């Protein structure tokens, strides 16, 4: 079945440093979504990428979708303590109605102030 691999598993950075997490799917995706989950919380939707090669920015966050629609990345510039949490990518496969999301295992981000 479809698998979504995410690396690294864990990253600990100094406040102000940059952070990147990578996501790779074993199959071509209809779209990819990114979620953030704070410790003890639930996933919160960040963004959805649909087009091949798409790049989207949200303030210090930059999201990319690969040309083959099988890989994606999230880059955070100048991390802050509020960025702490687990970042999940979720590859979407189309069903008759809506999408089935296959989540990666997530990247845990810790920020030292």
């Amino acid at each position, binding site marked *: 079945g479809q698998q979504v691999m995410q690396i690294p598993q864990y990253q600990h950075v100094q406040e102000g440093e940059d952070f990147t997490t990578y996501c790779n799917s074993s199959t071509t995706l209809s779209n990819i979504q990114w979620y953030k989950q704070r410790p003890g919380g*639930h*996933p919160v939707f960040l963004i959805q990428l649909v087009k091949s090669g798409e790049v989207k920015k949200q303030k210090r966050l930059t999201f990319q979708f690969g040309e083959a629609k099988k890989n994606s990345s999230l880059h955070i510039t100048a991390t802050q303590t509020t960025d702490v949490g687990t970042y999940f990518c*979720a590859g979407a496969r189309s069903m008759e109605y*809506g999408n*089935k999301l296959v989540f*990666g295992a*997530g990247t845990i981000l810790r920020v030292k102030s």
Partner: protein
Amino acid sequence: DAGVTQSPTHLIKTRGQHVTLRCSPISGHKSVSWYQQVLGQGPQFIFQYYEKEERGRGNFPDRFSARQFPNYSSELNVNALLLGDSALYLCASSLSGDYGYTFGSGTRLTVV
């Protein structure tokens, strides 16, 4: 406007028992999905419902079932509970199921 609400928030059950988890989607959202999140892992897809019909099923045994009601709320039922069913069960709603989901806070199920 209320978000996705789930009940109960926490639950402790004994092996072999049955459990029902409930979810109310955001008003106007017709698609509800259920996910299981084991500690340290990403959410795993269980079911998707749209307009009261099952539209997708993940790789879970038949002990797991769900339904969606006319008001678009949903229930997830798990029979013959196993220790391995201990997890955070997340409900997510979406307008049509093809854009980003809004997750509820989840139900933490512990099977002892």
